Each structure stands twice: as structure tokens, then as C-alpha cells.
């Protein structure tokens, strides 16, 4: 019986694991890029392009691709992949150093995924906690009003 259940479970799960994501092209670098550091998780390089030119380059590169978000931060533009490409994000600094713009391509998205999930799970608790506090306060206020009115009615 256990073997049958195990086999059935494998048959259910196996196609999903075989499925996997399609091969996606890696993020191209600008023509004049100079790599500062590179490891499994991150690729950092500089380019002579300004922030706006670098942004235009990547907008053109990613034109027509789905699930790519451009976020305008104070100090950088953050390009995030919301699908399952082999890269997670491209960070284009707005501040130029020695007339060069720093760009960081993050390959790893697991730390982002884990972090955002934990934060959002806690966020659900916070929303419901605040609702709990709201209900407690409104309950207290209403029960006082109701009791006062009942006392007035009883006094009459």
C-alpha cells in the first residue's frame, strides 16, 4: 500500500520537476563594461554610460519581455525579474563615480524570495493584529455606550 502511494506521488510530482523553466538569455553587459567583481551570486561592473543611457540600454534589451519591473529608487534604478530567468535584478546607480556608472546584476533570488516571504507573512500577522486592536477599541467604546444607554433606560 505504501509503495503504491509513493509511486502515485512520484508520478504526480515528477512531471512538475521535469517541467522546469525554459532557458533564458543572461543579462547583456554594455559595450564598454569593466567588470569589478564576479561570483555565483553577483556581477558588478562599471560603464561610461550615464544612468539614463544605461537605463535606456536595458529598456531596449528587455523590450517585449514579460514580468520585468522597473523601480525608480532614490539612488538607483532597480530592474527586477518576476519570472524565473537566471538573473534576479539589475541595479543601475544614479550617482556617477569617476565618470562611470556602477551596475550590479544579481543572480541569486533565493535570499530575496526568502526575505520577502518572511516579511510578508509577518505583514499578514501585522494586518490582523491591527484589526484586532481596532476591534477591541471599537468593542470597548460601543459596549460603554450601550451600557450607558441601558442604565439610562433602567433609571427611567
Amino acid at each position, binding site marked *: 500500500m505504501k509503495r503504491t502511494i509513493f509511486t502515485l506521488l512520484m508520478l504526480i510530482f515528477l512531471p512538475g520537476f521535469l*517541467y522546469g523553466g525554459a532557458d533564458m538569455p543572461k543579462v547583456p553587459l554594455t559595450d564598454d563594461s569593466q567588470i569589478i567583481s564576479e561570483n555565483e551570486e553577483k556581477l558588478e561592473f562599471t560603464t561610461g554610460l550615464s544612468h539614463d543611457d544605461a537605463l535606456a540600454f536595458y529598456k531596449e534589451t528587455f523590450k517585449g519581455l514579460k*514580468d520585468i519591473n522597473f523601480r525608480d529608487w532614490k539612488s538607483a534604478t532597480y530592474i527586477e525579474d*518576476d*519570472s524565473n530567468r537566471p538573473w534576479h535584478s539589475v541595479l543601475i546607480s544614479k550617482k556617477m563615480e569617476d565618470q562611470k556608472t556602477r551596475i550590479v546584476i544579481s543572480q541569486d533570488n533565493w535570499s530575496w524570495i526568502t526575505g520577502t516571504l518572511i516579511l*510578508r*507573512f509577518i505583514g499578514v*500577522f501585522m494586518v490582523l493584529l491591527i484589526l484586532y486592536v481596532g*476591534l477591541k477599541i471599537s468593542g470597548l467604546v*460601543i459596549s460603554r455606550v450601550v451600557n450607558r444607554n441601558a442604565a439610562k433606560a433602567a433609571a427611567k
Partner: protein
Amino acid sequence: MSANEILDMLMGIVQTSGVANFQFNLIIMWIIGLLFMYLAIAKNFEPLLLLPIGFGIFIVNFPLVPLMGFTEEGHAQLLQFFYRYGLEWEIIPCVIFLGLGAMTDFGPLIANPKTLIIGAGAQLGVFVTFTGTILAGFTLKEAASVGIIGGADGPTTIYLTQHLAPQLLGANALAAYSYMAMVPLIQPPIMRLFTSQKERLIKMKQMRAVSRQEKIIFPLVTVAIIALLVPSVVPLMGMFMLGNLMKESGVVARLTDTAQNALMNIVTIFLGISVGATMHADAFLNPKPLFIFALGLVDFAVCTVGGILTVKIMNLFLKEKINPLIGSAGVSAVPMSARVSELEGIKYDKKNHLLMHAMSPNLAGVIGSSAAAGMFIAMFN
């Protein structure tokens, strides 16, 4: 008329029939559609939804049927019309929530608001499944839409899926409603595994009475807080609370009656058949739906565990203990999972009735799953 003209006419009739354009993969979809109709009719598994969904699957999987396409003039055909203006525009899930709100009594939740925390804890599976789905190669948006299945809330699942991954609407909705119907099978073993004999015998104090004024204020307070914190789900929660306000105010009985009955029934029909109609063989027959079904089961199980564990953690700090059997009711299959808590409770003590206590986290789970959906939408906005 010449023989050639007659032959030509006959060929034309044959070629515009379904038989000449038949594909064998359609048979698989017929079987799936018939299976869900069987589950609805013979086994009474969520018949209000599985019957129209099953029929929708069955009827769109015939060749050349003018149901999910567009006319030559560019007008949507029948089911495409329901899908576009009901689901694509996210109208139907919100109107269903209006009806559900008009049917819901939030008294148990108002009487015991700390069970809101259980409703939050029971969303654990949503986030765990999100991770598992990404490992399987789904995109982040697809993973979020699959994760919310564990929230056990059909309209929320449909709302979020349509928002993030409309290509998975059929599979997600089918998984959500199927597992909601199977809650009495899925939850009890988990409840027994994660609770001790002593915990199952915990008797909870009778809940206080809730005044009419509190029941009227509740939807206003809730929608205000949700709107401030998770505005992306206000279409859903707003309609839910409007329905509830209509019910509790007592001054719009006709509207409440319409929302509970006629309106609810109408949108349920359109929802079911539109969802089923999205499942054409060409879109549905790939490993993804199978994997979604498997993950949906894991999702429900982990959500059940999350609810029970949340109660156990709360009991470390509470003087008046909560029976952990009601923790599983945080999975918002209303009122099925609350009934499961009741049945499990009386198994160990015939006088320990947990139904009304379990309704509290059950209703909290609806708000919790909406909050989780809002968190996912915010992730991609």
C-alpha cells in the same frame, strides 16, 4: 445542380462539423469535465461550482464551438463575454464576496477577536507553497497565484490568479474548489498528528453576546483598516463588508435577500462556466495543472498545520487556553473546516462543542487570505 456542386456542398457541411476537426486530446478534457460533474452530482463535492466548471470544461472542448473566441466583427462570443467582463475585469469574485458577506455572521469573530491571529497563522502554507512552486520552475507570479490556493478562498484565488497569472486560472480554481470540498478528508489526520489528547479536551468558555451595534461597526472598521494597510484587496474586502453591513443593518432586507440569493446564484453560474471554459485542451494539457493539484494538497495541509501551531503558540501566553482543534479552522473553507473541528472535538468529548468557537478563526481566515493576497499583489506592483 451538378454533381460537383452537390459534393462540394456536402464536403463543406462535413468540414464545418466538429467530427472533421476532431483532436484526440479533447477526449482527456471530456473525461476531466465529466469527472468533476460526477464529483458534484454523485459525491456532492462543492456542486454549486464544480458542476458548472465541469460543464464548462466539457463544452469548450469540442472543435469549432463558438464559445471562447470572437466573432468576425470582433465581438466576444458567449463564454468569452462572461470571462472577459466577469473574470478578466475581476467583477465576479467581488460580487460573490458581496453575497458571501450578506450571508456571514461575524458574531463569533467579534466576540473573540484574538482568533484573528489564527487566521493569519493559517496562511503559512500559502508562503511555503510559493517557495515550492518556484523550485518547480514556475514564475514568481505563477507561484503566488498557486500559493493562495491554500487560503481556501475561491474568490480570492480567482481574483489573485486573474491579476498575476491568468493562464493558470482554470487549474488554480479547480484545485481550490476541489480541495475545499475535501477538507473533511485532509484535515482530521493532521489535526490528530499535531494535537495531544490533553489539548483536544480543552473546553472553551462560552462566547459573550455581541450587540447589534458592534456587528454594524465591524465591517466599517475592517474595511477601513484593510484599505489603509492592503489597499489592493479593497475591491474584494470592500464588497464583502458591504454585504455584511447590509445584513447587519437590518434596514435593507430586500437588498440583502437579493445579494444572498439571486445575485449570488447568478454570478456563481457565470463564474463556474467561465472558469471551466478557460480549460481548453491546448492550454490545459501540460504538467503544470498536475503539479498545481499536487501542490494544492500540500498547501492545504501546511495551512492546517500553521493554524494549529499558531494556537499552540498563543496558548503559551494565554491564561484561558484555546483548543488547538479550532486552529485548523483558520483554513477559510467556511463553514466546512469549522464543522471538522466540531466533529473532531466531540470524538474525544461528546460535550465539547467547538463549532461556534471554530467559526471565529474560520472567518478570520477569510480576512487572512485576503491580506495574504494583498501582500502578493503589492510584491509585484
